[in-house]
């Protein structure tokens, strides 16, 4: 009983101290802004905490989807449609949305992401990361899991439906486990992404009507069509910016 009380007291003191220190620190830096970069100390604690909170068996989980060019391509299409808005098509995190997040999305081509196990990357996509902009994409339904297992045991030439770019799952934006494992394969491919793949992803990025119109205008202009010169500045959007 005494040990429990002591632990509780310690916890309260730690929280109060952390709040006071944070307040003092942030006041000195001009207040909380999502534009700021987390300090090395904060990053180290966050990464350590994320690792501690991840179930141990999740780290050692391996993909039921065999590595293949088709799986990488399906992952690429999915990434361009769902992930690039924050992470950028190239995984650098240098998107307009990503640059405004706190913490910023990591450069996934680098060691910090590439050194994670497949199971860790899978778990992060499925469950998200608390206190960051990374949502949980996993629906957690057993059907999806069964689908992934069925795929793993299907003959090599069996056709398994992969969602095409821009194909949404009705109002359900959750990824199936199969989708997520393909995303893991694509994330492993990011350091080797070609310019051609990047261009293809740009065409797959979700766009609003204005952005589609803008892209058509750009394509027409570069194609030598449209004699009227375009305006000096116009709006558009790309996932890899």
């Amino acid at each position, binding site marked *: 009983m005494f040990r429990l009380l002591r632990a509780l007291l310690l*916890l309260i003191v730690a929280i109060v101290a952390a709040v006071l220190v944070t307040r003092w620190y942030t006041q000195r830096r001009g207040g909380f802004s999502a534009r700021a970069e987390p300090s090395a100390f904060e990053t180290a604690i966050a990464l350590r*905490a994320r690792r501690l909170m991840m179930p141990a068996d999740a780290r050692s989980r391996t993909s039921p989807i065999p590595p293949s060019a088709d799986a990488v391509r399906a992952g690429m299409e999915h990434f361009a449609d769902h992930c690039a808005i924050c992470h950028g098509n190239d995984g650098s995190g240098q998107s307009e949305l990503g640059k*405004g997040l706190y913490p910023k999305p990591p450069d996934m081509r680098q060691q910090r992401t590439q050194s994670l196990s497949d199971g860790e990357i899978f778990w992060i996509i499925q469950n998200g990361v608390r206190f960051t902009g990374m949502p949980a994409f996993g629906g957690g339904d057993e059907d999806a899991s069964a689908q992934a297992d069925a795929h793993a045991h299907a003959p090599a030439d069996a056709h398994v439906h992969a969602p095409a770019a821009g194909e949404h799952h009705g109002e359900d934006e959750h990824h199936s486990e199969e989708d997520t494992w393909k995303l893991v394969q694509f994330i492993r491919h990011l350091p080797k992404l070609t310019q051609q793949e990047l*261009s293809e992803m740009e065409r797959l990025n979700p766009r609003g009507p204005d952005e589609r119109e803008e892209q058509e205008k750009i394509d027409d202009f570069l194609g030598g069509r449209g004699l009227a010169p*375009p*305006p000096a500045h116009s709006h*558009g959007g*790309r996932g890899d*910016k």
Partner: protein
Amino acid sequence: MISRIALFSAWLALIPVAAAAHAGHEHHVLGTIKTIDATHIVVQTTDEKTHEVKAVAISLNGTTKIRRGDEAAKRSDLRVGERVVVSVGTGKEPLKATEVRVAAQP
């Protein structure tokens, strides 16, 4: 267990809730290349509404991507008089090119 709780509480206090950022629009400058050197590109462009022709200077740096169609290209591949689309991020002055795109070779 205590160390885990302490670590988590420190993390909780130190890490602010992620703020939803406003997605900025990517601005483009469309026109023809007037001049180009190692650090700048000058694009001749015409305002669609006022029909005013003006030259817009945009700085280039090591991170500026150059593309000819879907292929990566070099700055030296760009020619004066070519149609060009320059991505300039938020469009805030001074303009900095994130990408310079010209049409694929016919």
